[in-house]
């Protein structure tokens, strides 16, 4: 066990855990931020996507010990009132079915738009290809990202 300081959604947090614990489980079980989901544990589904300094990463693959000073953002901290352009676009297109993968999809999409404010179809497809949606909402996900891109620009 080790005491580790984290910056999560703009707040300082301290946890006492096995340093090898993936950030996913620290968020879910030690910090009670359950919006980030476990789907596969091997970085193949994207349900656990969070931001480290604004860049999408799979939190199931990142041991909590390597975070250091980097800022963690989870779906709960993406916006104050659920009004990030990507979240708003998701609502406008009524994207979710079961909803389980959507936090990961939204975090991935928000990261894409941070880097490329006006992505092409190919760029959207490539950026989102690591995020599985078993309900098959891909067409709406893509449409929502385009709407969010327009809203941001």
């Amino acid at each position, binding site marked *: *066990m080790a005491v580790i300081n984290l910056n999560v959604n703009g707040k300082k947090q301290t946890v006492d*855990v*096995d340093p090898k*614990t993936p950030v996913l*489980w620290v968020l*879910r*079980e030690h910090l*009670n*931020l*359950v*919006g*980030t*989901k*476990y*789907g*596969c*544990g*091997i970085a*193949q*589904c994207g*349900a656990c996507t969070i931001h480290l300094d604004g860049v999408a990463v799979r939190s199931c693959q990142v041991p909590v010990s390597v975070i250091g000073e980097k800022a963690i953002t*989870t*779906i*709960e901290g993406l916006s104050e009132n*659920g*009004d990030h352009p990507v*979240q*708003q676009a*998701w*609502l*406008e297109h*009524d994207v*979710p*079915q*079961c*909803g*389980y*993968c*959507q*936090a990961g999809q*939204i975090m991935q999409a928000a990261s894409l738009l941070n880097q490329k404010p006006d992505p092409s*179809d190919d760029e*959207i*497809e*490539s950026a*989102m*290809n*690591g*995020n*599985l*949606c*078993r*309900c*098959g*909402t*891909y*067409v*709406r*996900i*893509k449409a929502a990202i385009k709407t969010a891109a327009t809203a941001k620009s």
Partner: protein
Amino acid sequence: MTIVKTNIDRRAFLKVSALAGGGMMLSFSWLAGCKPAPEEMAALPKEWFELNSYIKIGDNGAITLMSANPEFGSNVKTSMPMILADELDVDWKRVMVEQADFFPERFDRQFTGGSQGIRQGWKPLRTAGATARQMLVNAAAQQWSVPAGEITTEAGMLHHKTSGKKAGYGEVASLAATLPVPEEVALKEIKDFKIIGTSKKNVDGTAIVTGKPMFGVDYKQEGMLIAMIAHPPAFGLKVKSVDDTAARAMPGITDVFIFKTLADDYERNGFDTTTFTELVAVVGNTTWEVMNAKKALKIEWEKSADQNVIVNGWGGKQTVTIPGGLESTESHKLRMAEMSKKKANVLRKDGDPESAFKRAAKTLERTYSAPYLAHNTMEPVNCFAHVTADKAELYGPIQAPELIRNTLAARLGLPKENVHIKLARMGGGFGLRAYGHHMVEAAVISQKVNAPIKMVYTREDDMTYGIYRPTYTATYRAALDKDNNLIAFHVKGGGIPEHAVHAMRFPAGAVDNYLAEGWRLDSNITIGAFRAPGSNFIAGAEQSFLDELAELAGKDPIEFRLELLERAKTKPVGEKNDYDPDRYAGVLKLVKEKSKWTEPQPNVHRGVSAYFCHNSYVAEVIDMEMQNNKPVVHKVYAAVDCGIVINPDAAANMGEGAIVDGIGNAFFGELTFVEGVPQKTNFDKYRMIRQKEAPKSIEVHFVKNEHDPTGLGEPLFPPVFAAVANALYKATGKRHYQQPFLKEGITLG
């Protein structure tokens, strides 16, 4: 105007209403859109008045509607309350939706599956809404001393035209709640619907996009431990012994033990599907610790003998033998090929098929097959359980709580009234969660450790301890006369452990000489419902075959089907045909129009397919393009006749999802076995359709009619497989008979 008997037992809900409420989680329709204006936000009332199990009205006019069915992504939590709200005649903006617990004394049919939620809920929900509305009208009539028949309602307001009196529902709700339930009420005319048929946003939309806890796996309670199970690595194995020394010594681990999921003499219901009745539990403080300890278990497995289990379900009580032995896909294929040659059960026979085949000008015979599929819901199996001496509380993903409550009561030794199941939002279902073995596992573990626990499966557990879609095969034969008329049709289907032949469906009824046969083989690999059971294979086989047959007959594939449907309509063969030829033809005509079928585009390769299942009719056209020698699904058109559509945009969303699901499974879906061991354990090997492979656009069109609503979650899925195969043929010149098509060397670009 339709008058219906209300059949609402007021005493039942009054008696139990004290149990309801407290810590309820409300979903606000007005939060699901964009930012609500302050005047749109309903304040919470000081007091709620319950008019029946489904409807509570606040003293300020706020409305709470109960969503009784479990939600697994088909959006019943929005669409079913919409039905209530329309008959209740309220403003949707003032509606809050609350997920009901499993409570059979209060709610009808709390089951999500078989595409039956809306179909079966249609009349009860309309009646519940109309009954509550009538009670509010009666209360106003009493207060104003005017005849109830002179009072009209609109958007939560009561009006009496002659006297000019008006009041909000909230003002009369306290009186209405004390009035007798009317024995009969009038339902709205279809033309008067204001909410049904308009698109409403998912009431949980905001909660989903902001990551609020709502799934079973998100649940947490003070003192809760985490549990995981270890199951045999192969179907046909069982636990022999466990060396838990290393696991127990690991940090955070509180217990390791072997436990029985079902008693040996337990009489199973039809959904108590499991081969593994003995598992190893690991219990500890956190998921990460338990996950690591599980890896440190040293378990010895041994071969399982044949197991005889009593199953009281599926229409009778019988002893079922789960065979021992380690099964492999390769040996399955050999056994299935052998069975295909043998005599099978005749399911339907019209005319004299064999003599028709003898006199045919042309014949065609093709064999289709498909593998086992894993459901792979994004949320792995999990369940919270807290079992004490006198009661059990469960919270988790489950489509069929009623069935599993009986199993839980029997296994825990509790009266079923003391087994409480709360319905979590499910991270996907697709049939998997009709089976509740995970709830029993969680409950038994909680009982043993005498603590609240949350049991979670790893993805690997979820994929390798599945209730899979069976593996199927079917051989189709058809005979054409010299004028290319279909004179005989023969389907012989089989599978492990069931066949997928629906003998009364099209083209039965459209051919004078028709034969349907089925056979099955036993297995210890557990199978169960998977989005459109049976249909999800047979539609692809049948509709691929009809495409090839149309080509042999020199006919357009849509015209060929329409000719057969015309025959089934004007001169049907047999009496038990289970489809309406007009509605079937209707979706083909609609998809023909919407896809501009008669105006082919250069370099666009099109496949068509149509199917009837779950009381609904669907036709689909897939437009495929070849890019770098790989097929790309450019566009999909679907035409759907499912009667009245409650929530059109949400319905289209589910249709789009079913199409994506079908394309993915047609190309990639497959689980194989070697010596009982599932050969894929996670998404690195089990290929699922991804964003790049999804269609570039999908149009879902609904036939507009006034039929009562029928199924929607499943019917768009089965025809996809053939639309893909038929488009692929146009694109590549090669027919595909074996799913997944990836295996035949073809993949999506």
